[in-house]
C-alpha cells in the first residue's frame, strides 16, 4: 500500500451551507477508510462573507492541511478568485459557469464546469443543493463508490425527511455522473469500505474525554471557539448525567467550578482567551486554596477581540502570568482531537492528585475549526483522586487540610464528611486553614509558616514535572535541523517532515504536549544537542521559545512564527527548512511553491 492523499477545498458564501457540505465529505471519506484533517475558514458573523472548508484525506494518518489544493469546489466568484492560485498542478476546480467567470486557467489546472444551480433547482426551490452536486462531482474525481454517497447523505439529512434526503442524493449523483463522464481524475484515493473511521474536533473530544474522566460538572459562558464544549455538555446532560451551568459570566463560571471542585466533583470550565482573562483571579484562588479543577482555553487569534473565528497560539504567556504572585499551575496542550480525548484523564488526575488547577490549551484550528480522525481512544485510564479522606477522627475542631507533608500534598476532605471541616482560604493560612494574614502577619512564627506554605505550594511543581512527559522527538536523532513546536503547531510539521525526508533533508521535530511544569534540565539537554533549532508556533513573539529561554537560557534564534490567523501549513515549514538547509549547505534546494 502506497501513501495516497488528496486535498479538497470548498468555497462559498456564508449561508450556502458549506460547513455541512464539508462535514458530509469528511464523513464520506471517513467511512471509506480515510484519515482526515479539516479546517473551517469561517467568518465572525452569521450570514454573508466568504467561507471555505478545507479537507485533507489519505490512507495514512494525515495531521494537517496537506500541500495546496487538489480539488476545489467554488460556488462563488470570490471563492474562485481567492483560491485559484493555490490549486496544485494536476488539480481541478469545479464551478458553475453561470455564476463564476473563470478567465484564463493556471497551467495544469482543469476547469470542471457544471450546471450546479440548474441541477440543484430540480430538487428544491432554493438552489441550496448546489454544494451537494459539487460533492458528487468531487466523489467522482476521487473514485469513490457511488453507493457511499447515498449512505452518508442519508445519515446527514435523515432527520429532515425523505424528500430532502432523496433530493440530495439525486443531486449528488448527477454531479457524480456528469463528472465521471467528462473528466479523468488525476489524483484518486485508495478506499477501504470496511474501515469506518471516527472523527471529531478537539472541543468535542475534550468534552467526551472529560466526562469519561469523571467530570460531571461543567460551567461556562459562551465564547467562540470554546462554545462547542458547552453545547456537548448541554446536549448530553441527561444522557450522561452532567450538571451544566450556563453562568452569567466567566468569573461566575470559574467560581462555580471552584465551588464544585471544593465540594468533591471533578469540575471543569472552558472559554477562550478573553474569557480566561476574567477567570484569572479565580484561578489564583484555586491554586492558593488547593482546589483541583480543569480549565480549558480554546485559543483564537487576538489580541483582544481580534479575529474571533481565526486561529493562533497566543495565550501561553497569559497562562504563565495568571493573576498576582507565584503559584503552581499545570499547562497541557494536546496536538489533536485524539490526544485531547486521551489527555483529559491525566488532566483530572494531576489536578486531584496534586490539588492544583490544570489548564488545557486548544486552539480554533484543532478545536471548533477542524476535524481529525480518532483512532486510539483510551476509555480506561485509571481515575486517581489523590489524597481524599472520607473518615476523620472526631478529635479537634478543624481538619488539618493544609498539613505540611513530604510530597507537599495534604489530605483532603470534602463537605459532607463528618469532622472534616476546614476553611479553604485565599489568605495565607496555617495547616488548618486559619489566617496567617490577619492578626499574626509579620510575626516571626507566622513569617516562617508563610515561607513553608509558599514552599509547599510551589514545591508541587517538581513533583508534577516528574510526572509530566518530555516533548516527543519525531524523526532521526541525528538531524541538521530541529523544529520545536507545541500543541497544534506540531501538526503541519509532521507533514512537512514526511516531505522533507523524502527529499533527503535531515530534519527532526521536538513537540511539546505537556508544557509546564517540565524537567527543564532534561529539556535543555534535548535541545542543546540540536545543530540548528527552529521554533515554530502561531504567535508573534514566540511564546514557547520565550518559556524555553526563561527556563533553560537557550534562545532559539531561528523562528517560523505565524500570526495572521490562518493555520500553519506544511508548505510553510518545508520552505523555511529548505531555506535554512540551502544557506547552511550552500547548495540550492528546489523550493516548494506555497
Amino acid at each position, binding site marked *: 500500500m502506497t501513501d495516497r492523499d488528496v486535498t479538497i477545498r470548498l468555497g462559498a458564501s456564508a449561508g450556502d451551507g458549506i460547513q455541512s457540505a464539508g462535514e458530509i465529505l469528511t464523513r464520506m471519506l471517513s*467511512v471509506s477508510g480515510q484519515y482526515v484533517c479539516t479546517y473551517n475558514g469561517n467568518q465572525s458573523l452569521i450570514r454573508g462573507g466568504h467561507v471555505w472548508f478545507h479537507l485533507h484525506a489519505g490512507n495514512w494518518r494525515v495531521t494537517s492541511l496537506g500541500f495546496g489544493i487538489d480539488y476545489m469546489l467554488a460556488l462563488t466568484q470570490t471563492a474562485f478568485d481567492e483560491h485559484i492560485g493555490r490549486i496544485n498542478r494536476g488539480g481541478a476546480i469545479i464551478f458553475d459557469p453561470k455564476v463564476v467567470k473563470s478567465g484564463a486557467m493556471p497551467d495544469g489546472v482543469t476547469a470542471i464546469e457544471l450546471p450546479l444551480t440548474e441541477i440543484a433547482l430540480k430538487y428544491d426551490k432554493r438552489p441550496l443543493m448546489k454544494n451537494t452536486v459539487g460533492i458528487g462531482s468531487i466523489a467522482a474525481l476521487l473514485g469513490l463508490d457511488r453507493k457511499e454517497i447515498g449512505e452518508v447523505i442519508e445519515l446527514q439529512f435523515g432527520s429532515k425527511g425523505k424528500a430532502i434526503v432523496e433530493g440530495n442524493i439525486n443531486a449528488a449523483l448527477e454531479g457524480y455522473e456528469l463528472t465521471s463522464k467528462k473528466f479523468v481524475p488525476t489524483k484518486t484515493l485508495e478506499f477501504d469500505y470496511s474501515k469506518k473511521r*471516527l472523527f*471529531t474536533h478537539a472541543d*468535542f473530544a475534550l468534552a*467526551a474525554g472529560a*466526562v*469519561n*474522566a*469523571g*467530570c*460531571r*460538572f461543567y*460551567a461556562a459562558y459562551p465564547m467562540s471557539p470554546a462554545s462547542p464544549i458547552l453545547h*456537548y455538555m448541554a446536549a*448530553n446532560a*441527561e*444522557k*450522561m*448525567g*452532567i*450538571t451544566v*451551568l450556563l453562568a*452569567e459570566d466567566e*468569573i*461566575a*463560571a*470559574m*467560581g*462555580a467550578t*471552584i*465551588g*464544585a*471542585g*471544593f*465540594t*468533591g*466533583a471533578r*469540575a471543569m470550565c472552558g472559554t477562550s482567551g478573553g474569557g480566561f482573562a476574567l477567570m484569572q*483571579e479565580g484561578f489564583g*484562588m484555586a491554586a492558593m486554596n488547593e482546589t483541583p479543577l480543569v480549565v480549558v482555553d480554546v485559543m483564537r487569534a487576538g489580541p483582544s477581540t481580534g479575529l474571533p473565528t481565526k486561529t493562533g497560539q497566543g495565550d501561553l504567556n497569559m497562562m504563565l502570568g495568571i493573576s498576582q504572585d507565584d503559584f503552581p499551575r499545570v499547562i497541557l496542550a494536546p496536538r489533536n482531537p485524539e490526544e485531547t480525548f486521551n489527555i483529559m484523564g491525566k488532566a483530572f488526575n494531576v489536578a486531584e492528585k496534586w490539588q492544583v488547577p490544570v489548564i488545557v490549551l486548544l486552539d480554533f484550528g484543532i478545536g471548533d475549526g477542524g476535524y481529525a480522525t*480518532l483512532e486510539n481512544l483510551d*476509555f*480506561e485510564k485509571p*481515575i486517581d483522586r489523590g489524597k481524599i479522606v472520607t473518615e476523620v477522627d472526631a478529635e479537634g*475542631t*478543624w481538619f488539618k487540610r493544609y498539613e505540611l507533608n513530604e510530597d507537599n500534598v495534604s489530605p483532603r476532605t470534602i*463537605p*459532607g464528611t*463528618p*469532622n*472534616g*471541616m*476546614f*476553611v*479553604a*482560604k*485565599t*489568605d495565607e493560612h496555617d495547616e488548618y*486553614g486559619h489566617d496567617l494574614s*490577619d492578626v499574626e502577619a509579620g510575626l516571626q512564627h507566622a513569617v516562617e509558616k508563610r515561607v513553608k506554605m509558599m514552599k509547599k505550594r510551589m514545591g508541587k511543581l517538581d513533583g508534577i514535572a516528574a510526572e509530566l512527559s518530555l516533548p516527543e522527538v519525531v524523526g532521526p536523532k541525528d538531524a541538521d535541523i530541529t523544529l520545536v513546536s507545541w500543541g497544534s503547531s506540531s501538526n503541519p510539521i509532521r507533514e512537512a517532515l514526511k516531505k522533507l525526508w523524502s527529499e533527503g533533508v535531515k530534519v527532526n521535530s521536538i513537540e511539546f504536549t505537556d508544557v509546564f511544569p517540565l524537567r527543564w534540565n532534561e529539556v535543555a539537554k534535548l535541545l542543546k544537542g540540536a545543530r540548528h533549532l527552529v521554533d515554530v508556533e502561531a504567535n508573534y513573539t514566540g511564546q514557547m521559545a520565550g518559556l524555553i529561554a526563561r527556563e533553560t537560557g537557550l534562545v532559539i534564534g531561528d523562528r517560523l512564527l505565524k500570526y495572521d490567523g490562518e493555520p500553519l501549513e506544511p508548505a510553510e515549514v518545508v520552505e523555511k527548512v529548505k531555506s535554512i538547509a540551502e544557506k547552511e549547505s550552500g547548495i540550492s534546494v528546489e523550493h516548494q511553491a506555497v
Partner: protein
Amino acid sequence: MNTKLFESDTRADWCPGCGDFGALSAVKNALASLDIEPHNVVISSGIGCSSNFPGYIRTYGHHGLHGRPLPVAVGSKMANPNLTVLAVAGDGDEYGIGFNHVVHTARRNHDVKLLVLNNEIYGLTTGQLSPTSTYGQRTKTTPYGSSIYPLNPLSTLLGIGATFVARGFSGKVKELSEIIQAAIKHRGFALVDILSPCVTWHDIYDQVRSKMYTLESVGHDSSDLHAALDRSKETDRIPLGIFYQNEDNPSFDELLRKGVGKQYPVDGIRHMTAEEQKVALSIFS
C-alpha cells in the same frame, strides 16, 4: 441541636462591638435550631471584615475572593444538593463588585442563601464609600460628603423577582435567627440583608435602634409585592423582617434535577458507562 457544635477555636477578630458578632450568633443559632449538622453546611464568603465569618463557625468554609461568594456557593450546591449552602459577605462584596452574581443567582432561584452583613461601608479597606453608603455620608473617598445615590438592595431584588427578600439587624439576634431559619427553609434563593454596624468607620447602632420596627408589627403581608416595594423604599423608618416570599416557583436545583436526575456531580467520578460510551462514539462518527 446545641450551638456549641458550631463553635470554632478561633477567636473572631472583629473590633469589639462590631455588628458581625451578632450575625455570627444568629447563624449558629439558626443552624442548630434547624438541626443541620455542621459537616453538611458550606459557608462561602468573600473578602472583607464580614467575610472572615467562616473561620469563626465550625462548618465547611470557603473564604474566597471579594465579590465572589455566590458563584462558589452555587457550584457547591449544584455539585452536592444535599448540603446547606450559605453565602455570607459584606455590602461591598455583594452589592458592589459581586452584585451581578446576586442578580442572576436570584433570578435563576438557586437554592443558596445570601446573608449580607451590610454596614454601609467598606470596613476592611478602612472606610470607603460602599454601594449602600448614604447620600451625604463622609468617608475616605467622600471627604466632603457623598453625592452618590446608594443602591437599595431590597427594592432591586424585588424588581428582579427574587422569591425571598428580608432584612434583619445584628443587634436583634433572636429575630435575626428566625429570619435566617425561614431563609434556609425557603424554596430557592433567599436574600437576608443584615444591618450590621461598623463601630469603627460608620457606627449606625443608634440610628437603626431609633428607626427600626418589625414588619410583623404592622401586619405586613409578605405575599404582596407592591406593599413590599413600598416598605423597602422607606428611609425615615427601618422595617425589619420578611418583605416578600413566594414559594410557587421551583428552585433552580429542582428544575435541573428534573432533567438530569439525581446524578450528582460528586457521585459521578467514574468512567463512562457502556451506554454513555455508545453515545459518545456516535457523535464521533
